[in-house]
Protein backbone atom coordinates (compact mmCIF):
# COMPACT_ATOMS: atom_id res chain seq x y z
CA UNK A 1 0.00 0.00 0.00
CA UNK A 2 1.15 3.52 -0.79
CA UNK A 3 0.51 6.36 1.59
CA UNK A 4 0.46 10.15 1.35
CA UNK A 5 -0.24 12.84 3.95
CA UNK A 6 -2.31 15.82 2.84
CA UNK A 7 -2.48 18.95 5.00
CA UNK A 8 -3.46 22.54 4.51
CA UNK A 9 -5.34 25.45 6.03
CA UNK A 10 -9.15 25.15 6.36
CA UNK A 11 -11.05 25.59 3.10
CA UNK A 12 -7.92 25.48 0.97
CA UNK A 13 -9.46 22.72 -1.14
CA UNK A 14 -7.91 19.54 0.33
CA UNK A 15 -11.00 17.36 -0.12
CA UNK A 16 -11.61 18.57 -3.67
CA UNK A 17 -8.00 17.91 -4.60
CA UNK A 18 -8.16 14.41 -3.10
CA UNK A 19 -11.41 13.66 -4.96
CA UNK A 20 -9.93 14.82 -8.27
CA UNK A 21 -6.76 12.87 -7.52
CA UNK A 22 -8.83 9.74 -6.85
CA UNK A 23 -10.61 10.11 -10.22
CA UNK A 24 -7.29 10.40 -11.92
CA UNK A 25 -5.60 7.49 -10.08
CA UNK A 26 -8.35 4.94 -10.78
CA UNK A 27 -7.13 2.78 -7.84
CA UNK A 28 -8.64 1.79 -4.49
CA UNK A 29 -8.29 4.93 -2.45
CA UNK A 30 -8.97 5.09 1.28
CA UNK A 31 -9.07 8.32 3.27
CA UNK A 32 -8.53 8.95 6.97
CA UNK A 33 -9.76 12.43 7.80
CA UNK A 34 -8.34 14.00 10.97
CA UNK A 35 -10.26 16.95 12.32
CA UNK A 36 -10.89 18.66 15.66
CA UNK A 37 -14.53 18.98 16.53
CA UNK A 38 -16.58 18.43 13.40
CA UNK A 39 -16.03 17.19 9.91
CA UNK A 40 -18.26 17.67 6.91
CA UNK A 41 -16.25 15.60 4.49
CA UNK A 42 -17.61 12.13 5.15
CA UNK A 43 -20.58 12.61 2.81
CA UNK A 44 -18.41 13.89 -0.02
CA UNK A 45 -16.08 10.89 0.13
CA UNK A 46 -18.99 8.46 0.49
CA UNK A 47 -20.71 10.01 -2.53
CA UNK A 48 -17.56 9.37 -4.54
CA UNK A 49 -17.49 5.76 -3.31
CA UNK A 50 -14.29 6.28 -1.33
CA UNK A 51 -13.99 4.41 2.00
CA UNK A 52 -13.37 6.94 4.75
CA UNK A 53 -12.61 6.96 8.48
CA UNK A 54 -13.08 10.13 10.51
CA UNK A 55 -10.97 10.90 13.57
CA UNK A 56 -12.01 13.82 15.76
CA UNK A 57 -9.42 14.86 18.31
CA UNK A 58 -12.02 16.51 20.56
CA UNK A 59 -10.35 17.72 23.72
CA UNK A 60 -6.92 16.38 22.80
CA UNK A 61 -4.16 18.24 21.00
CA UNK A 62 -4.94 17.54 17.33
CA UNK A 63 -1.30 17.05 16.49
CA UNK A 64 -0.68 14.50 19.22
CA UNK A 65 -3.97 12.87 18.28
CA UNK A 66 -2.77 12.48 14.71
CA UNK A 67 0.49 10.76 15.70
CA UNK A 68 -1.33 8.49 18.11
CA UNK A 69 -3.79 7.32 15.48
CA UNK A 70 -2.06 7.38 12.14
CA UNK A 71 -0.66 3.85 12.50
CA UNK A 72 -4.15 2.52 13.13
CA UNK A 73 -5.11 4.10 9.81
CA UNK A 74 -2.38 2.15 8.07
CA UNK A 75 -3.70 -1.13 9.51
CA UNK A 76 -7.24 -0.19 8.47
CA UNK A 77 -6.03 0.49 4.93
CA UNK A 78 -4.16 -2.81 4.73
CA UNK A 79 -7.16 -4.77 6.06
CA UNK A 80 -9.41 -3.20 3.45
CA UNK A 81 -7.23 -3.76 0.40
CA UNK A 82 -6.56 -0.06 -0.12
CA UNK A 83 -3.96 0.79 -2.81
CA UNK A 84 -3.37 4.40 -1.79
CA UNK A 85 -4.06 5.57 1.75
CA UNK A 86 -4.51 9.30 2.13
CA UNK A 87 -4.62 11.13 5.44
CA UNK A 88 -6.31 14.48 5.28
CA UNK A 89 -5.71 16.70 8.28
CA UNK A 90 -7.48 19.98 8.74
CA UNK A 91 -7.55 20.45 12.46
CA UNK A 92 -3.84 20.93 12.94
CA UNK A 93 -2.59 24.32 14.00
CA UNK A 94 0.00 26.11 11.87
CA UNK A 95 2.60 25.23 14.45
CA UNK A 96 2.59 21.59 13.33
CA UNK A 97 2.81 19.29 10.38
CA UNK A 98 1.59 15.72 9.93
CA UNK A 99 4.37 14.97 7.47
CA UNK A 100 6.38 11.83 8.06
CA UNK A 101 9.88 11.06 6.79
CA UNK A 102 9.68 8.69 3.82
CA UNK A 103 5.95 9.28 3.22
CA UNK A 104 5.04 11.53 0.29
CA UNK A 105 3.64 14.71 1.77
CA UNK A 106 1.34 17.25 0.19
CA UNK A 107 0.35 20.72 1.36
CA UNK A 108 -2.68 22.34 -0.26
CA UNK A 109 -2.81 26.14 -0.40
CA UNK A 110 -5.35 28.48 -1.92
CA UNK A 111 -4.10 31.09 -4.38
CA UNK A 112 -6.78 33.47 -3.13
CA UNK A 113 -5.44 33.40 0.40
CA UNK A 114 -2.87 36.13 -0.19
CA UNK A 115 0.61 36.07 -1.69
CA UNK A 116 2.43 35.93 1.61
CA UNK A 117 0.36 33.08 3.01
CA UNK A 118 2.83 30.38 1.93
CA UNK A 119 5.48 32.06 4.03
CA UNK A 120 3.18 32.11 7.06
CA UNK A 121 1.87 28.56 6.97
CA UNK A 122 4.88 26.99 8.65
CA UNK A 123 6.00 23.35 8.89
CA UNK A 124 2.90 22.01 7.10
CA UNK A 125 4.20 23.69 3.93
CA UNK A 126 7.87 23.89 4.76
CA UNK A 127 8.21 20.12 5.11
CA UNK A 128 5.96 19.11 2.21
CA UNK A 129 7.31 17.32 -0.88
CA UNK A 130 4.55 18.71 -3.06
CA UNK A 131 2.73 22.00 -2.70
CA UNK A 132 -0.59 22.04 -4.52
CA UNK A 133 -1.96 25.47 -5.36
CA UNK A 134 -5.74 25.62 -5.83
CA UNK A 135 -7.98 28.30 -7.31
CA UNK A 136 -5.07 29.56 -9.42
CA UNK A 137 -7.28 29.61 -12.50
CA UNK A 138 -9.17 32.65 -11.28
CA UNK A 139 -6.26 34.88 -10.34
CA UNK A 140 -4.01 36.72 -12.76
CA UNK A 141 -0.92 35.06 -14.19
CA UNK A 142 1.22 37.59 -12.36
CA UNK A 143 -0.30 36.74 -9.00
CA UNK A 144 0.15 33.06 -9.73
CA UNK A 145 3.83 33.66 -10.43
CA UNK A 146 4.28 35.71 -7.28
CA UNK A 147 2.44 33.05 -5.28
CA UNK A 148 4.71 30.31 -6.64
CA UNK A 149 7.70 32.48 -5.73
CA UNK A 150 6.36 32.85 -2.24
CA UNK A 151 6.04 29.06 -1.96
CA UNK A 152 9.63 28.69 -3.15
CA UNK A 153 10.72 31.10 -0.44
CA UNK A 154 9.19 28.93 2.24
CA UNK A 155 10.14 25.60 0.72
CA UNK A 156 12.69 25.69 -2.07
CA UNK A 157 12.73 21.96 -2.67
CA UNK A 158 9.00 21.39 -3.01
CA UNK A 159 7.37 20.56 -6.31
CA UNK A 160 4.72 23.20 -6.92
CA UNK A 161 1.64 22.02 -8.82
CA UNK A 162 -1.50 23.83 -9.79
CA UNK A 163 -4.70 21.80 -9.43
CA UNK A 164 -8.19 22.96 -10.26
CA UNK A 165 -10.44 21.37 -7.62
CA UNK A 166 -13.51 21.71 -9.82
CA UNK A 167 -12.40 20.64 -13.29
CA UNK A 168 -9.54 18.47 -12.11
CA UNK A 169 -7.03 20.22 -14.39
CA UNK A 170 -3.59 19.39 -13.01
CA UNK A 171 -4.77 16.44 -10.90
CA UNK A 172 -3.20 13.97 -13.22
CA UNK A 173 0.22 15.56 -12.80
CA UNK A 174 -0.29 15.12 -9.07
CA UNK A 175 -1.31 11.50 -9.58
CA UNK A 176 2.00 10.82 -11.32
CA UNK A 177 3.87 11.99 -8.21
CA UNK A 178 1.58 9.96 -5.95
CA UNK A 179 2.33 6.82 -7.93
CA UNK A 180 6.00 7.32 -7.12
CA UNK A 181 5.22 7.10 -3.38
CA UNK A 182 6.88 4.31 -1.44
CA UNK A 183 5.05 1.05 -0.61
CA UNK A 184 4.62 0.63 3.14
CA UNK A 185 3.27 -2.02 5.50
CA UNK A 186 3.73 -0.16 8.78
CA UNK A 187 4.79 3.19 10.20
CA UNK A 188 6.38 1.86 13.38
CA UNK A 189 9.73 3.59 13.97
CA UNK A 190 9.06 6.18 11.26
CA UNK A 191 9.58 9.78 12.33
CA UNK A 192 7.64 13.01 12.08
CA UNK A 193 9.41 15.64 10.00
CA UNK A 194 8.80 18.28 12.66
CA UNK A 195 8.25 18.14 16.42
CA UNK A 196 4.79 18.50 17.96
CA UNK A 197 4.24 21.02 20.80
CA UNK A 198 5.97 20.15 24.05
CA UNK A 199 3.30 21.60 26.33
CA UNK A 200 1.63 19.52 29.02
CA UNK A 201 -0.33 22.00 31.09
CA UNK A 202 -3.68 22.25 32.85
CA UNK A 203 -5.37 23.44 29.67
CA UNK A 204 -4.24 20.31 27.85
CA UNK A 205 -6.44 18.33 30.22
CA UNK A 206 -9.61 20.31 29.92
CA UNK A 207 -9.18 23.34 32.20
CA UNK A 208 -11.15 26.34 30.91
CA UNK A 209 -10.83 28.84 33.77
CA UNK A 210 -8.41 31.74 33.31
CA UNK A 211 -6.02 32.83 36.06
CA UNK A 212 -2.66 32.07 37.69
CA UNK A 213 -4.32 29.69 40.12
CA UNK A 214 -5.32 27.30 37.39
CA UNK A 215 -2.11 27.36 35.40
CA UNK A 216 -0.14 24.22 36.08
CA UNK A 217 2.39 22.08 34.28
CA UNK A 218 4.78 23.04 31.50
CA UNK A 219 4.01 26.43 30.10
CA UNK A 220 5.58 29.62 28.86
CA UNK A 221 4.94 33.20 29.89
CA UNK A 222 5.23 36.17 27.55
CA UNK A 223 7.32 39.13 28.57
CA UNK A 224 5.17 42.20 28.01
CA UNK A 225 6.75 45.64 27.74
CA UNK A 226 6.16 47.95 30.72
Amino acid sequence: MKMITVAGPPSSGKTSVILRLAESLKLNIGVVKFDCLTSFDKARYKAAGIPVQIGLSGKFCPDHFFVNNVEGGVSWGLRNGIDVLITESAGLCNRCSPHITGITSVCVVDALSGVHTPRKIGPMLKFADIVVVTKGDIVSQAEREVFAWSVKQANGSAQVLSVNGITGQGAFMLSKKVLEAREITSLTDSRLRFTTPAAACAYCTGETRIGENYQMGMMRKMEYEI
Partner: protein
Amino acid sequence: MIDFGNLIAAQPLSALLADYPVVRDFFLNLNLPPLNEAKSLADALLEADDDWLLEFGLTREEIPSQLAAFLTTMTAAESGRAVTSLTIIGGRDKSGGAENIELHIEPGTVVSIVGPTGSGKSRLLGDIECLAQGDTPTARRILIDGAEVTEDDRFNLEGKIVAQLSQNMNFVMDLTVAEFLEMHARSRAVGVSGDADALIKTCFECANSLAGEKFTPETKVTQLSGGQSRALMIADCAYISQSAIVLIDEIENAGVDRREAIALLAQSEKIVLISTHDPLLALGADKRIVIKNGGISAIIDTSAEEKASLVELEKIDRLLYNTRKTLRAGGQINDLGTL
Protein backbone atom coordinates in the same frame (compact mmCIF):
# COMPACT_ATOMS: atom_id res chain seq x y z
CA MET B 1 26.31 28.18 -11.04
CA ILE B 2 27.38 30.15 -7.99
CA ASP B 3 28.66 28.27 -4.94
CA PHE B 4 26.52 30.00 -2.34
CA GLY B 5 27.95 27.90 0.48
CA ASN B 6 31.39 29.48 0.00
CA LEU B 7 29.95 32.91 -0.63
CA ILE B 8 28.00 32.82 2.63
CA ALA B 9 31.01 31.62 4.61
CA ALA B 10 33.41 34.17 3.13
CA GLN B 11 31.40 37.40 3.29
CA PRO B 12 30.06 39.58 6.06
CA LEU B 13 26.26 39.61 6.07
CA SER B 14 26.18 43.25 4.98
CA ALA B 15 27.96 42.41 1.69
CA LEU B 16 25.73 39.40 1.10
CA LEU B 17 22.60 41.46 1.73
CA ALA B 18 23.78 44.16 -0.67
CA ASP B 19 24.21 41.61 -3.47
CA TYR B 20 21.18 39.51 -2.59
CA PRO B 21 18.46 41.55 -0.87
CA VAL B 22 16.30 38.42 -0.86
CA VAL B 23 18.46 37.12 2.02
CA ARG B 24 16.44 39.46 4.23
CA ASP B 25 13.30 37.45 3.31
CA PHE B 26 15.05 34.27 4.39
CA PHE B 27 15.71 35.73 7.85
CA LEU B 28 12.11 36.88 8.06
CA ASN B 29 10.83 33.47 6.99
CA LEU B 30 12.84 31.81 9.76
CA ASN B 31 11.93 34.50 12.26
CA LEU B 32 15.59 34.93 13.18
CA PRO B 33 16.48 37.54 15.81
CA PRO B 34 18.45 40.57 14.46
CA LEU B 35 21.99 39.50 13.55
CA ASN B 36 25.27 41.42 13.59
CA GLU B 37 25.65 42.21 9.90
CA ALA B 38 29.32 43.12 10.14
CA LYS B 39 30.05 39.44 10.69
CA SER B 40 29.65 36.37 8.53
CA LEU B 41 26.44 34.39 9.04
CA ALA B 42 28.15 31.62 10.98
CA ASP B 43 29.85 34.10 13.32
CA ALA B 44 26.72 36.18 13.75
CA LEU B 45 24.77 33.08 14.68
CA LEU B 46 27.24 32.30 17.47
CA GLU B 47 25.89 35.41 19.20
CA ALA B 48 22.26 34.35 18.73
CA ASP B 49 20.30 33.02 21.68
CA ASP B 50 20.36 29.22 21.99
CA ASP B 51 16.85 28.99 23.36
CA TRP B 52 15.53 31.05 20.52
CA LEU B 53 17.01 28.76 17.91
CA LEU B 54 15.83 25.66 19.71
CA GLU B 55 12.34 27.04 20.08
CA PHE B 56 11.97 27.43 16.35
CA GLY B 57 13.49 24.05 15.57
CA LEU B 58 16.75 25.42 14.15
CA THR B 59 20.38 24.58 14.67
CA ARG B 60 23.37 26.85 14.00
CA GLU B 61 24.87 24.30 11.66
CA GLU B 62 21.91 23.97 9.34
CA ILE B 63 21.07 27.65 8.83
CA PRO B 64 23.98 28.52 6.47
CA SER B 65 23.33 25.46 4.31
CA GLN B 66 19.60 26.23 4.30
CA LEU B 67 20.42 29.75 3.15
CA ALA B 68 22.66 28.39 0.39
CA ALA B 69 19.83 26.13 -0.81
CA PHE B 70 17.40 29.05 -0.58
CA LEU B 71 19.62 31.30 -2.69
CA THR B 72 20.13 28.54 -5.25
CA THR B 73 16.36 28.13 -5.63
CA MET B 74 15.61 31.83 -5.66
CA THR B 75 18.26 32.66 -8.27
CA ALA B 76 17.15 29.73 -10.44
CA ALA B 77 13.58 31.02 -10.31
CA GLU B 78 14.85 34.24 -11.84
CA SER B 79 16.13 32.89 -15.11
CA GLY B 80 13.25 32.10 -17.46
CA ARG B 81 13.57 29.32 -19.97
CA ALA B 82 13.89 30.46 -23.58
CA VAL B 83 11.84 28.45 -26.07
CA THR B 84 12.84 28.28 -29.72
CA SER B 85 9.84 26.31 -30.93
CA LEU B 86 6.62 24.65 -29.87
CA THR B 87 5.37 21.58 -31.74
CA ILE B 88 1.88 20.13 -31.56
CA ILE B 89 1.67 16.51 -32.68
CA GLY B 90 -1.89 15.44 -33.44
CA GLY B 91 -3.76 12.83 -31.43
CA ARG B 92 -7.42 11.98 -31.96
CA ASP B 93 -10.77 13.76 -32.07
CA LYS B 94 -13.79 13.01 -29.87
CA SER B 95 -14.80 10.06 -32.08
CA GLY B 96 -11.30 8.59 -31.99
CA GLY B 97 -10.37 9.69 -35.53
CA ALA B 98 -6.68 10.50 -36.04
CA GLU B 99 -5.67 14.16 -36.36
CA ASN B 100 -2.61 13.50 -38.53
CA ILE B 101 -1.00 16.89 -38.07
CA GLU B 102 2.28 18.27 -36.87
CA LEU B 103 2.47 22.01 -36.29
CA HIS B 104 5.64 23.95 -35.45
CA ILE B 105 5.28 27.39 -33.98
CA GLU B 106 8.14 29.84 -33.49
CA PRO B 107 8.53 32.84 -31.17
CA GLY B 108 6.86 36.00 -32.42
CA THR B 109 4.05 33.99 -34.02
CA VAL B 110 0.38 34.41 -33.23
CA VAL B 111 -1.90 31.44 -33.84
CA SER B 112 -5.65 31.71 -33.39
CA ILE B 113 -7.89 28.75 -32.59
CA VAL B 114 -11.41 28.78 -33.99
CA GLY B 115 -14.34 26.36 -33.86
CA PRO B 116 -17.88 26.04 -32.54
CA THR B 117 -18.67 26.17 -28.84
CA GLY B 118 -17.71 22.92 -27.16
CA SER B 119 -15.54 21.82 -30.08
CA GLY B 120 -12.37 21.60 -28.01
CA LYS B 121 -10.52 24.92 -28.30
CA SER B 122 -9.89 25.24 -24.57
CA ARG B 123 -8.88 21.57 -24.49
CA LEU B 124 -6.09 22.29 -26.98
CA LEU B 125 -4.86 25.14 -24.78
CA GLY B 126 -5.04 22.76 -21.80
CA ASP B 127 -2.88 20.22 -23.65
CA ILE B 128 -0.22 22.86 -24.25
CA GLU B 129 -0.42 24.08 -20.66
CA CYS B 130 0.36 20.67 -19.21
CA LEU B 131 2.81 19.82 -22.00
CA ALA B 132 0.71 16.74 -22.84
CA GLN B 133 2.61 13.59 -23.76
CA GLY B 134 -0.18 11.46 -25.17
CA ASP B 135 -1.74 11.23 -21.72
CA THR B 136 -4.74 13.58 -22.05
CA PRO B 137 -8.11 12.64 -23.66
CA THR B 138 -6.87 13.96 -27.01
CA ALA B 139 -3.63 11.89 -26.94
CA ARG B 140 -1.79 14.91 -28.34
CA ARG B 141 1.91 15.40 -27.76
CA ILE B 142 3.64 18.72 -27.22
CA LEU B 143 7.33 19.15 -28.02
CA ILE B 144 9.52 22.01 -26.83
CA ASP B 145 12.48 22.96 -29.04
CA GLY B 146 11.68 19.93 -31.16
CA ALA B 147 12.26 17.49 -28.32
CA GLU B 148 9.97 15.42 -26.13
CA VAL B 149 9.50 16.77 -22.65
CA THR B 150 10.65 14.34 -19.97
CA GLU B 151 8.54 13.71 -16.87
CA ASP B 152 11.02 15.61 -14.73
CA ASP B 153 11.06 18.58 -17.08
CA ARG B 154 7.32 18.61 -17.13
CA PHE B 155 7.23 19.11 -13.40
CA ASN B 156 10.10 21.54 -13.33
CA LEU B 157 8.66 23.65 -16.11
CA GLU B 158 5.25 23.84 -14.38
CA GLY B 159 4.14 27.44 -14.47
CA LYS B 160 7.48 28.57 -15.90
CA ILE B 161 7.14 28.54 -19.66
CA VAL B 162 3.40 28.88 -20.14
CA ALA B 163 1.44 31.97 -19.10
CA GLN B 164 -2.34 32.08 -19.29
CA LEU B 165 -4.88 34.82 -19.73
CA SER B 166 -8.59 34.28 -19.57
CA GLN B 167 -11.85 36.07 -19.01
CA ASN B 168 -12.23 34.36 -15.60
CA MET B 169 -9.07 35.79 -14.11
CA ASN B 170 -9.12 38.58 -11.57
CA PHE B 171 -6.69 40.46 -9.40
CA VAL B 172 -7.01 39.60 -5.73
CA MET B 173 -4.02 41.31 -4.13
CA ASP B 174 -4.63 44.37 -2.04
CA LEU B 175 -1.95 46.43 -3.79
CA THR B 176 -1.76 49.49 -6.01
CA VAL B 177 -0.81 49.05 -9.66
CA ALA B 178 2.70 50.35 -8.94
CA GLU B 179 3.20 48.07 -5.92
CA PHE B 180 1.79 45.15 -7.85
CA LEU B 181 4.19 45.55 -10.79
CA GLU B 182 7.08 46.06 -8.42
CA MET B 183 6.21 42.92 -6.51
CA HIS B 184 5.97 40.86 -9.68
CA ALA B 185 9.24 42.26 -11.00
CA ARG B 186 10.87 41.58 -7.64
CA SER B 187 9.72 37.97 -7.63
CA ARG B 188 11.70 37.54 -10.83
CA ALA B 189 14.80 39.53 -10.09
CA VAL B 190 16.75 38.36 -7.11
CA GLY B 191 19.91 40.43 -7.35
CA VAL B 192 19.90 44.20 -7.59
CA SER B 193 18.68 45.08 -11.04
CA GLY B 194 18.61 48.76 -11.95
CA ASP B 195 16.43 48.25 -14.99
CA ALA B 196 13.46 46.95 -12.97
CA ASP B 197 12.16 50.50 -12.58
CA ALA B 198 12.37 51.17 -16.32
CA LEU B 199 10.59 47.87 -17.01
CA ILE B 200 7.79 48.70 -14.59
CA LYS B 201 7.37 52.13 -16.17
CA THR B 202 7.17 50.75 -19.72
CA CYS B 203 4.74 48.10 -18.60
CA PHE B 204 2.50 50.62 -16.87
CA GLU B 205 2.45 52.97 -19.87
CA CYS B 206 1.68 50.14 -22.22
CA ALA B 207 -1.20 48.88 -20.04
CA ASN B 208 -2.61 52.37 -20.05
CA SER B 209 -2.45 52.70 -23.82
CA LEU B 210 -4.28 49.37 -24.20
CA ALA B 211 -7.05 50.29 -21.79
CA GLY B 212 -10.02 52.36 -22.88
CA GLU B 213 -10.07 54.43 -19.70
CA LYS B 214 -6.80 55.62 -18.16
CA PHE B 215 -5.73 54.69 -14.65
CA THR B 216 -2.94 55.86 -12.33
CA PRO B 217 -0.13 53.87 -10.66
CA GLU B 218 -1.87 54.59 -7.34
CA THR B 219 -5.08 52.78 -8.32
CA LYS B 220 -5.66 49.53 -6.42
CA VAL B 221 -5.50 46.57 -8.80
CA THR B 222 -8.78 45.27 -7.38
CA GLN B 223 -10.48 48.53 -8.33
CA LEU B 224 -9.54 48.37 -12.01
CA SER B 225 -12.40 47.83 -14.45
CA GLY B 226 -12.58 44.59 -16.43
CA GLY B 227 -10.93 46.24 -19.44
CA GLN B 228 -8.22 47.91 -17.37
CA SER B 229 -7.46 44.63 -15.57
CA ARG B 230 -7.15 42.78 -18.87
CA ALA B 231 -4.90 45.54 -20.24
CA LEU B 232 -2.63 45.33 -17.20
CA MET B 233 -2.51 41.53 -17.38
CA ILE B 234 -1.51 41.63 -21.04
CA ALA B 235 1.17 44.28 -20.57
CA ASP B 236 2.49 42.38 -17.55
CA CYS B 237 2.62 39.17 -19.62
CA ALA B 238 4.57 40.97 -22.33
CA TYR B 239 7.09 42.80 -20.15
CA ILE B 240 7.43 41.12 -16.78
CA SER B 241 6.29 37.50 -17.00
CA GLN B 242 9.13 35.22 -18.02
CA SER B 243 6.94 32.71 -19.83
CA ALA B 244 7.80 32.17 -23.47
CA ILE B 245 4.34 30.85 -24.39
CA VAL B 246 1.12 32.79 -23.81
CA LEU B 247 -2.25 31.05 -23.96
CA ILE B 248 -5.27 33.31 -24.26
CA ASP B 249 -8.78 31.96 -23.82
CA GLU B 250 -11.40 34.41 -25.09
CA ILE B 251 -10.56 37.96 -24.22
CA GLU B 252 -13.07 39.40 -26.73
CA ASN B 253 -15.53 41.85 -25.09
CA ALA B 254 -12.77 42.84 -22.69
CA GLY B 255 -12.72 46.55 -23.52
CA VAL B 256 -9.07 46.60 -24.55
CA ASP B 257 -7.48 47.28 -27.88
CA ARG B 258 -7.29 43.58 -28.75
CA ARG B 259 -5.27 43.88 -31.95
CA GLU B 260 -2.67 46.07 -30.33
CA ALA B 261 -2.52 43.74 -27.34
CA ILE B 262 -1.81 40.68 -29.46
CA ALA B 263 0.72 42.58 -31.56
CA LEU B 264 2.48 43.59 -28.36
CA LEU B 265 2.81 39.98 -27.20
CA ALA B 266 4.10 38.87 -30.60
CA GLN B 267 6.64 41.71 -30.59
CA SER B 268 8.02 40.56 -27.27
CA GLU B 269 8.98 37.32 -29.08
CA LYS B 270 6.39 35.18 -27.36
CA ILE B 271 4.53 32.27 -28.89
CA VAL B 272 0.88 33.31 -28.65
CA LEU B 273 -2.11 30.99 -29.01
CA ILE B 274 -5.51 32.50 -28.74
CA SER B 275 -8.84 30.70 -28.65
CA THR B 276 -11.44 33.06 -30.03
CA HIS B 277 -14.86 33.65 -31.58
CA ASP B 278 -13.78 37.16 -32.64
CA PRO B 279 -13.20 37.53 -36.43
CA LEU B 280 -10.65 40.32 -35.97
CA LEU B 281 -8.51 38.23 -33.66
CA ALA B 282 -8.94 35.11 -35.79
CA LEU B 283 -7.76 36.90 -38.94
CA GLY B 284 -5.22 39.05 -37.14
CA ALA B 285 -3.18 35.94 -36.35
CA ASP B 286 -0.49 34.56 -38.65
CA LYS B 287 -2.21 31.17 -38.75
CA ARG B 288 -5.39 29.69 -37.45
CA ILE B 289 -6.22 26.24 -36.21
CA VAL B 290 -9.73 25.04 -36.97
CA ILE B 291 -11.18 22.64 -34.39
CA LYS B 292 -14.07 20.32 -35.16
CA ASN B 293 -15.41 17.57 -32.89
CA GLY B 294 -12.39 17.82 -30.60
CA GLY B 295 -9.83 17.46 -33.39
CA ILE B 296 -7.72 19.85 -35.44
CA SER B 297 -9.44 19.73 -38.83
CA ALA B 298 -7.37 22.34 -40.64
CA ILE B 299 -4.48 24.77 -40.21
CA ILE B 300 -4.84 27.85 -42.37
CA ASP B 301 -2.17 30.47 -43.10
CA THR B 302 -3.78 33.89 -43.15
CA SER B 303 -3.68 34.79 -46.87
CA ALA B 304 -2.99 38.19 -48.42
CA GLU B 305 -6.66 38.40 -49.43
CA GLU B 306 -7.69 37.72 -45.86
CA LYS B 307 -5.34 40.43 -44.63
CA ALA B 308 -7.03 42.80 -47.08
CA SER B 309 -10.45 41.73 -45.81
CA LEU B 310 -9.19 42.35 -42.30
CA VAL B 311 -8.56 46.00 -43.19
CA GLU B 312 -12.22 46.33 -44.24
CA LEU B 313 -13.40 44.51 -41.12
CA GLU B 314 -11.34 46.85 -38.99
CA LYS B 315 -13.17 49.80 -40.54
CA ILE B 316 -16.49 48.25 -39.52
CA ASP B 317 -15.09 47.56 -36.05
CA ARG B 318 -13.90 51.17 -35.79
CA LEU B 319 -17.39 52.33 -36.80
CA LEU B 320 -18.97 50.21 -34.07
CA TYR B 321 -16.37 51.40 -31.59
CA ASN B 322 -17.04 55.06 -32.40
CA THR B 323 -20.80 54.49 -32.23
CA ARG B 324 -20.39 52.99 -28.78
CA LYS B 325 -18.15 55.85 -27.70
CA THR B 326 -20.61 58.46 -28.96
CA LEU B 327 -23.52 56.76 -27.21
CA ARG B 328 -21.54 56.50 -23.98
CA ALA B 329 -20.75 60.21 -24.14
CA GLY B 330 -24.47 60.98 -24.46
CA GLY B 331 -24.37 61.70 -28.20
CA GLN B 332 -26.82 60.71 -30.95
CA ILE B 333 -26.24 58.51 -33.99
CA ASN B 334 -27.85 60.34 -36.89
CA ASP B 335 -25.19 60.07 -39.57
CA LEU B 336 -22.87 57.05 -39.70
CA GLY B 337 -20.68 58.87 -42.21
CA THR B 338 -19.43 61.26 -39.55
CA LEU B 339 -18.33 58.55 -37.18
